[in-house]
């Protein structure tokens, strides 16, 4: 075999191996997202409100919703919340509605929302909130978990792990 041919073969095999390696590596397939399952009745799941009442996502039906599951003990969740506040301010008038679902204690959530000046509504729960996240495709019960819902109430996209303003805007813009 000539040196050139051998080199070509080497590169070809190496590239295929790289592709195969990437394909089989869970890291490149994670975090899972895009599984748009719309579970029946997820909008009407009743959770606590920070004010001490009860509420559900149905209150904002008809808007393009970004439902963000988070917790005060979750650092990656806290990191992305200021982005959401900014987006709510910028795109709220066009029908974008962020809704936080805190998997946390009411007493921890209330002061946190005030400190950060969170300008969108929140619901609070524990196992019930996690069950809602699970029904929307978050099998791992990990946070943050963000769900984009269109005006008709259909789940368009789910994102496990922190997201960015640019990425989220690319998803919600066509829906507004």
């Amino acid at each position, binding site marked *: 075999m000539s040196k050139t041919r*051998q080199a070509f073969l080497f590169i070809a095999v190496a590239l295929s191996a790289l592709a195969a*390696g990437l394909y089989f590596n869970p*890291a490149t397939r994670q975090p899972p997202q895009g599984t748009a399952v719309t579970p029946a009745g997820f909008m009407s799941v009743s959770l606590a409100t920070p004010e001490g009442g009860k509420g559900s996502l149905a209150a904002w039906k008809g808007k393009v919703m970004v439902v963000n599951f988070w917790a005060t003990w979750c*650092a990656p969740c806290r990191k992305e919340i200021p982005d959401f506040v900014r987006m709510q301010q910028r795109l709220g008038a066009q029908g974008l509605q962020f809704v936080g679902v805190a998997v946390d204690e009411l007493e921890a959530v209330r002061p946190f929302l005030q400190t950060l000046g969170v300008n969108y509504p929140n619901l609070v729960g524990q196992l019930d909130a996690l069950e809602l996240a699970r029904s929307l495709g978050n099998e791992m019960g990990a946070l943050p978990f963000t769900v984009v819902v269109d005006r008709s109430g259909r789940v368009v996209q789910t994102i496990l*792990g922190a997201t960015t303003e640019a990425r989220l805007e690319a998803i919600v813009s066509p829906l507004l």
Partner: protein
Amino acid sequence: MIPLKLFAATLAFFLLAALAPAGAAVLPVDQAFRVSGRLGEDGQITVRLRVAPGHYLYQDKLRFSAEPAGVTLGAPRLPPGQEIDDEFFGRVRIYRGEVEARFAVQRLPPGAAGLTLVVRFQGCADAGVCYTPREQRLSLERGRPETAVMRPAPGPVTDALREPALAR
């Protein structure tokens, strides 16, 4: 015939590609954190937590308790871990790799051959997700070298979530 060097290089590429960025993976919680325990004849408990690559546990979220109610545990001796300066939580200690906690059973009810150890923990993946606090129960029997480990509860445990220390 494929030259040996070529074969070796192919294999190396495949393995590197498959393994190198494994740190960014998000594993199911029972694969990310494996808990096992042992109760020695001398009454010493050893709990081993194996943290998968790319994942970590918070030291201050680790809790140990025992059942039945009559069992008293000594203070756990934990390795120092790694101090990190978290953007939100300040200086906190985390564990990667393998963690071993040791403590004594100070009192076991008369006639009891063992106990149920409840291990609570909370951790995250470097990929940018955090797991809800979990609780794992281990049935430990004196003299049995490594007791079978129960699977973590399918969902997080309400008690663990309600613990004030976890809800900072």
